[in-house]
């Protein structure tokens, strides 16, 4: 079964209200279109999708380095402060024998951001070159990345809760460390990077490669 795409037929889908618009009259490649239903402006494909994804991704990668070096929170007990980085917090959980929590935090704050950054680099590379492109698998992978995005905020919320709850004056108190800024930036940047990637480019590229072969 041959599947026609909207782009080939001179149609464009509004990303917000999912209305098909006829753009045959509009000249120019990937020009701004006004949706006939919701009156919003949109593009047939996200403009400069690969460049934007790449740029946000690099920013996320840069912010991820200080996020792991600096302490994410400082635990004061009896006036003595003990700085904790993300990794040392996890090793503390392992020392206490709380493996499920250690796994959850490790996944949410180390594995997920790294997988997102590496995965998006990979997707951008594959779309750009068209080497070994499997749109069906890659688009599923992209959805997984998109879904996982907000879960990396877990560590930030945990720190926010701890500094609010553990406030017992001199005995124990918790304050946040500078890494929390960088870590939040990493999460936000990867979310924006995932948002600016257009999965339809995967299918476009595949179709382009197949047409070139024939």
């Amino acid at each position, binding site marked *: 079964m041959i599947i026609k795409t909207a782009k080939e*037929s001179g149609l464009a889908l509004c990303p917000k209200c999912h209305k098909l618009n006829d753009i045959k009259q509009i000249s120019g490649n990937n020009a701004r279109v006004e949706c006939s239903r919701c009156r919003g402006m949109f593009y047939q494909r996200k403009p400069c999708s690969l460049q934007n994804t790449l740029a946000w991704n690099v920013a996320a990668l840069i912010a991820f380095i200080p996020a792991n070096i600096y302490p994410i929170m400082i635990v004061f007990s009896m006036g003595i402060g003990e700085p904790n980085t993300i990794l040392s917090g996890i090793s503390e*959980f392992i020392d206490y024998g709380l493996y499920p929590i250690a796994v959850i935090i490790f996944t949410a704050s180390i594995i997920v951001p790294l997988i997102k950054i590496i995965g998006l680099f990979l997707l951008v590379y594959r779309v750009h070159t068209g080497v070994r492109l499997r749109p069906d698998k890659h688009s599923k992978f992209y959805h997984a990345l998109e879904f996982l995005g907000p879960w990396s905020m877990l560590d930030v919320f945990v720190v926010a809760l701890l500094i609010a709850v553990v406030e017992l004056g001199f005995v124990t108190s918790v304050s946040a460390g500078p890494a929390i800024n960088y870590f939040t930036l990493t999460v936000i940047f990867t979310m924006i990077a995932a948002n600016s990637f257009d999965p339809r480019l995967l299918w476009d590229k595949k179709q382009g490669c197949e047409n070139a072969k024939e």
Partner: protein
Amino acid sequence: MTKIKNIKSLIACQQCDALYDEPILKQGQSAKCTRCGCTLVERKVDSIERSFYWSLAGIMLSAPAISLPIMGVTLVGQFHHASLLDCILALIDNGFFMIATLVFLFTLAVPIVRLLGAFYITYSFKFKRLKPSLLHFFRAYHHLDNWVMLNVFMLGIVVSMYKLLDDTELSVNMGLLAFILWLICSTMSSSALDQDYIWRELEKEFDN
């Protein structure tokens, strides 16, 4: 390029741009793309009614969920508890203004705005008070789709409870219950909302 007679009877997959004839669906059915497996259109059961009541409940629950203390700790005779709002205030006290702003947005402002938005839209549909401004309103509503993080905050509560459990005495307050209910209401109200139906009705009303 073949000629396309009627755009209105066509739909395209949002993820891979494949073109299909619009399927006729009954309530509760959904159509999936044969190429990438994404949902094309979905007709939800009792969309307006369900979303209306879920969002109404969510709006009522938002005040206790935000202001009631979620949990407290006791250590050497001292007791302290904190609510969602206290978390944000504590971040401000620590000087982390950016984090405070983002936590405020993701766990407080965006969920409330989305609940109010869903309530307003379903209210207008329920009582047949459709206005052209709803087009812009519903479009703006979609901008916030990805930025509700109540479920992540819930996991954060669980993790920090584990963290506090081994060296302090932990107590759970009413705020946690209110927060869980609020999370359920907010999730249900947005998942019960049938976007395709709302857009189609709005288009029928204001097609010019």
